[in-house]
């Protein structure tokens, strides 16, 4: 586990999968906490639950900047640091957060979106009328590393997920230079049904097997 995150430098940009307590790469997060990289810029739907999920990284003051859709009332350490002006937040609508990652992974630099038109989200963004409707320009969003959680990998890195623990994980896998996946088990290549593979191995660079930690 610690080997998988041993090269992550201070100042890195890291994406973290997970939503609603499901699909968080909690073992990788704890590995990053032990590694102690600082000044991190992170991208995640939320900002931890107590010490759980990203909470430990905020507690250790390893994070400087966050892009998130719903930091969450349970994100105790983040909320304290936000109120004290110690951490920067870019708040993004959830569907735009993942679409920006999808665009990055797909080689699309920016796209027009109707979400946030006329709201605080539109501030500083180019607005354009297309076929009579208002849109704002959203930029693609990538990272140096993606930490994701899947149920099972084969040795090549093909991934399948479990239930609603899929959420942001397959998208983040496409939007980072290095994608590190935490899985419950690794199976022999060729034993996963190609019809059911959600993330093809081309998007996965490192695999770590660890018992899932749930932060219910």
């Amino acid at each position, binding site marked *: 586990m610690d080997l998988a995150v041993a090269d992550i430098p201070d100042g890195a940009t890291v994406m973290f999968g997970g939503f609603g307590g499901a699909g968080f790469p909690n073992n990788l997060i704890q590995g990053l906490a032990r590694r102690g990289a600082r000044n991190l810029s992170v991208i995640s739907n939320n900002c931890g639950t107590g010490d759980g999920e990203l909470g430990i990284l905020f507690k250790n003051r390893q994070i400087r900047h966050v892009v998130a859709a719903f930091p969450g009332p349970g994100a105790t350490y983040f*909320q304290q640091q936000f*109120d004290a002006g110690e951490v920067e937040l870019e708040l993004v*609508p959830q*569907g735009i957060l993942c679409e920006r990652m999808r665009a990055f992974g797909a080689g699309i630099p920016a796209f027009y979106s109707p979400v946030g038109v*006329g709201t605080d989200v539109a501030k500083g963004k180019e607005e354009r009328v297309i076929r009579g409707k208002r849109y704002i320009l959203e930029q693609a969003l990538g990272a140096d590393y993606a930490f994701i959680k899947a149920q099972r990998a084969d040795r090549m890195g093909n991934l399948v997920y479990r239930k*609603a623990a899929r959420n942001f994980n397959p998208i983040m896998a496409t939007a980072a230079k290095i994608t590190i996946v935490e899985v419950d088990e690794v199976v022999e290549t060729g034993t996963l049904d190609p019809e059911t593979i959600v993330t093809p191995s081309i998007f996965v660079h490192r695999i770590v097997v660890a018992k899932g930690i749930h932060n219910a």
Partner: protein
Amino acid sequence: MPKARMTREQIAERAALELPDGAYVNLGWGIPNLIAAYVPKDVVVYFHSENGILGMGPRAKAGEEDYDLVDAMKVPVSLVPGAAYFSQVDAHVMTRGGHLDICILGGLQVSERGDLANWRVPGAKGAGGIGGAMDISVGAQKLIVTMEHNAKDGHRKIVKACSYPLTAIECVNTIVTDLAVIDVTAEGLVLREVASGFTPEEVQQQTEPKLWYGGKVPEMALRK
């Protein structure tokens, strides 16, 4: 003593009557989250959860909770036959792309032209959170807002222009409150029903913009 308004449960029960058979539906936090319990028996709807489920069923029974099968509020849920899992991108292809028939969200303010503010009270501590509300509001084929007609301190929540941070502009179709059912139309706000024991004039007093109504306005029905 002031007259009794409808309860949160009754607002949910009334809003549930707006769901047509076969609809794909997203329910937000607060009062909308109570609505699933009041879907009429002859109506089948499919619930979307923006973390990546279509065909979400009731809360999981005690002892059957699976923390990989949760709704967007972390509550362990069940599935109905025909349910599907998908990624976050697909979850919001459904919201933003206009594929959901009806979405029902809570509200802090709704304006005369259907602007919605529902994610942040100005001056509140903490960062606030947008979540999926902006994507849902923009894309819903029909957006219903359920909320109390007035805030706890009595101020009016249906206003000429929202002063709170907006979720989306010109997105609300219908407002269901503890006093009334109101449709947002190109001509303005139309008072469709009033709560039992209240007059249209009393509802107007609690509503900043003008309400349009003619003759007798029917009472809010909780059953068809």
